[in-house]
């Protein structure tokens, strides 16, 4: 395998994780990763120096998610029963499945930019600087998106249903 293939494949698991957290459907997430890889291979000559490769790839993935998401919004959302988040458990000790449902349902209530920062920084271990590059925003703005994202998620996890209702526009 050549250098491009090695580097790209090493980053594939992380990209599948981010894609899944964004779209929350396994096949659709891998479609997104595949689009991203095709684009990255096609534009390999445009890649930035190695240290920034990670950010570059997440940028491609996120841009593709956003443009696909906007197209979907134009067509109207396609919602199946699988897409509808289960209502969070009320009272009692939450078991781990409920906790997972809760955090993903909470993630879904966030605007895309807050969701992406929370994921890129908190899960993908991007530095604030790298996250700022992916979102194409100044670092100060990224920090405030992170702050808002985490706060909204915390409020959602504490008050659950209100946020679910707010999502139904």
């Amino acid at each position, binding site marked *: *395998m050549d250098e*491009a*293939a090695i580097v*790209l*494949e090493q980053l*594939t*698991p*992380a990209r*599948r*994780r981010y894609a*899944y*957290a964004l779209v929350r459907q396994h096949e659709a997430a*891998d479609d997104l*990763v*595949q689009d991203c*890889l*095709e684009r990255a*291979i*096609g534009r390999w000559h445009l890649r930035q120096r190695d240290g920034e490769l990670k950010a570059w790839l997440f940028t491609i993935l996120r841009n593709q998610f956003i443009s696909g998401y906007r197209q979907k919004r134009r067509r109207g959302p396609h919602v199946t029963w699988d897409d509808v988040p289960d209502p969070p458990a009320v009272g009692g000790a939450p078991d781990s499945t409920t*906790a*997972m449902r809760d*955090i*993903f349902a*909470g*993630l879904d209530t966030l605007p895309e930019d807050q969701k992406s920062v*929370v*994921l890129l*920084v*908190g*899960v993908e271990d991007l*530095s*604030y600087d790298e996250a700022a590059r992916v979102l194409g925003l100044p670092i100060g703005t990224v*920090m*405030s998106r*992170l*702050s808002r994202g*985490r*706060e909204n*998620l*915390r409020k959602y*996890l*504490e008050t659950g249903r209100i946020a679910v209702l707010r999502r139904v526009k």
Partner: protein
Amino acid sequence: MTERDNPIGEDDLHAYVDRRLQGERVEAVEAYLNSNTEVASRVYAWRMQRETLRDQLASKAAEPVPARLRISNIRAARRQSRLRQFRMIAASAAWLLAGGAIGWIAAKSDGFAPKPVPAVMVSDAISAYRTFVVDVSHPVEVKATDGDHLVEWLSNRLGQPIKAPDLTAFGFRLMGGRLLPASTSGTAAQLMYDDDHGTRLTLYLRNGEKGETAYRFVREGNVSAFYWIDQGLGFALSAATSRDRLLPIVEAVYHQVEGPKRAFQ
């Protein structure tokens, strides 16, 4: 003022959550959180949600990568789609070249600059040939035995003097002719000939044609046709025979109709 005394910012709190703070700054944040329980509960909630997200998503990153996301497979698919694209481009380029070549040959065989081919005329002529050549009882409207009447009648209707070429040298006798509507604005006439073997050929004439061309050949199914335009008249000679057999006949017709008409001017 040391780094430790700097006021705590939100960025410090997040950097603490993300374990990106170093040394003294960690202690400063922890000291701050100890005396600000309300902020501390927020920060611990952030850290909890961060850990939960990481835990819940860890299995996704640990999954084996599906085959369709292998770089080698994606590259192979790209190569195939490029090959398809190349084939499409090559195919259209071939058509362009072929079109250019046909245009060039047409221009050459013409001896003139390329002109719109009177395709409508020749197709009308061949249709008329097919329609009337099979007609046993009334192949012609006016028989040749009526003498000059045929040629005078058709000349009047076409508004131009025409002549029925003599093709007896090729074994073909004039049977007669008929008047036909033309699909364009003009009027058309058809002269029919036959030989001893029952082979029939027609000379189709049509007024209102523009320009002047050398004769061209076209074949539609079993019918061969030569056609040309001369002094406002379009001609098409059609027969169910080979090009080679028709060629000497068309040369004779070409010269016979040309001479007297020129003499009229």
